[in-house]
């Protein structure tokens, strides 16, 4: 059984590779034959070389600097990726960290909901991007406006999902808990909160996705490093190979984030009916 599963798995991976390899081959042929301007569409090989150059340290290793490891991660790509990740993580933590308690309160208390929901409904449809002028006016350039925008991008999906998660807790759980003698605080912390977790996590997933979009945009406008800044900078020099290398890096980082959140999701929801490990 195990070997048969392994074989199907390899077959799946194999069939998944056919189309990308085909496309890259066509792209390479087009570029080699000189049918396109290399500044408009560089060859895949040129992109790979550029990506490696982007990844590797820009200066040769010198004993005097901060050691081997610091040198190894001093490549522009890694510095950019870490800059972008830093902003995503900090912005997301601020946005989600505010949205979660607020959403729990709004979900649990009809009065708090009545106070705050109209405002939330008016602000929610404003795309985070629309806050850019205000963000720059308030926070200037650099990390602060970017983190502000990312926090806004993460805030609303987590808020809305937390509210519906708490409001849609099956009343049978509440009845059972009250029958067992649960106080209001126990009911909230040990019944309503865990019952809302599937909703909250889907909000987290959307929130992180939004944060990742917003970080790229905000780096294009307000920050002097990061992956978004780098591909815009590359355009100014007509380095299309670097633009594509940067885009591929953004894609890989996005995939890594999504995979990590997915794994966390599966772990936290291992009790949930709809999910298999």
């Amino acid at each position, binding site marked *: 059984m195990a070997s048969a599963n392994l074989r199907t798995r390899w077959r799946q991976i194999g069939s998944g590779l056919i189309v990308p390899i085909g496309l890259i081959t066509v792209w390479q042929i087009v570029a080699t034959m000189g049918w396109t301007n290399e500044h408009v569409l560089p060859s895949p090989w040129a992109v790979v070389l550029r990506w490696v150059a982007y990844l590797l340290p820009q200066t040769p290793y010198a004993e005097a600097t901060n050691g081997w490891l610091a040198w190894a991660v001093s490549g522009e790509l890694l510095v950019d990726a870490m800059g972008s990740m830093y902003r995503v993580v900090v912005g997301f933590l601020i946005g989600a960290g505010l949205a979660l308690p607020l959403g729990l309160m709004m979900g649990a208390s009809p009065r708090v909901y009545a106070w705050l929901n109209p405002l939330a409904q008016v602000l929610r449809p404003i795309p985070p991007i629309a806050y850019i002028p205000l963000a720059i006016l308030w926070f200037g350039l650099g990390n602060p406006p970017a983190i502000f925008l990312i926090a806004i991008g993460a805030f609303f999906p987590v808020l809305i999902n937390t509210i519906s998660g708490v409001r849609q807790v099956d009343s*049978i*759980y509440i*009845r*059972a*808990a*009250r*029958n*067992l*003698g*649960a*106080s209001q605080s*126990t009911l909230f912390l*040990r*019944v309503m909160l*865990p*019952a809302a*977790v599937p909703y909250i996590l889907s909000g987290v997933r959307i929130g992180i996705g939004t944060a990742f979009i917003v970080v790229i945009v905000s780096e294009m406008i307000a920050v002097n490093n990061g992956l978004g800044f780098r591909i815009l900078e590359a355009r100014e020099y007509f380095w299309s190979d670097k633009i594509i290398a940067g885009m591929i890096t953004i894609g890989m980082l996005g995939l890594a984030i999504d995979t990590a959140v997915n794994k966390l999701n599966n772990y936290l929801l*291992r*009790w*949930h*009916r709809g999910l298999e490990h």
Partner: protein
Amino acid sequence: MSGNHIQVQNVNKVFQSADRNVIALQDINLSIPQGQFVCLLGPSGCGKSTLLNAIAGFSLPTSGSITTDSKVVTAPGPDRGMVFQEYALFPWMTVEKNIAFGLEIKGVAANEIATRVDALLHKLGLYDFRQRFPKDLSGGMRQRVAIARVLALDSPILLMDEPFGALDALTRRNLQDELLRIWSELGKTVIFVTHSIEEALYLADRIVVMTYRPGTVKRDMLVTLPRLRDPASADFNTLKRELGLLVMEEQQRHHDQEMIAAAVD
């Protein structure tokens, strides 16, 4: 400690909606001594679950009073453990966590909780499943966990709302026997809601047959057949026929009233 353990006095329950009032319970009077196994029997809509929910404290009567050990019921509480038809296990807790939950709320010491949960796991044949989540259990197993969860509270009263209604016939019989074993061992007062005549006859000391809207007591009878009862015996079937006639009268009224309501609409 004998005497009247649960007292239901002149209880009425009216559900109000925009266009009409439904009288769910009308003038219910019941005295239930400690340790009695009572089945509330009737077709759906006869108010048997409403009465159980009122005793549980989930939905208080419109008028009249319910007392347990001379204390008026005003809210749900762990002195009246409830087993629901839908199991109502917390899906994010493992079997042992579900059973321990009521004890944790009570503030029982951790090692004491562990001992009591282990004993219950063994008593209900759940020990090998203690680390599982409810989604990985069959319906019968889930209901065993729900029973263990209320037994953990050691409440003198067990309220059961069609607990075996969703189970297949064999699992159902199995759990009925298990429940009888636990009941005779622990001497709890049980109020058990069912629409199955055979289930009521198999389990109860006393069967309260209820009428369809408004819910009243149609017949309050003691069942004196010796235990363990044989559903194939002649005595069992005589009673079954008698009860069947009573319940089917109410079922027929239920049907007729629905037809009238449909004609009015």
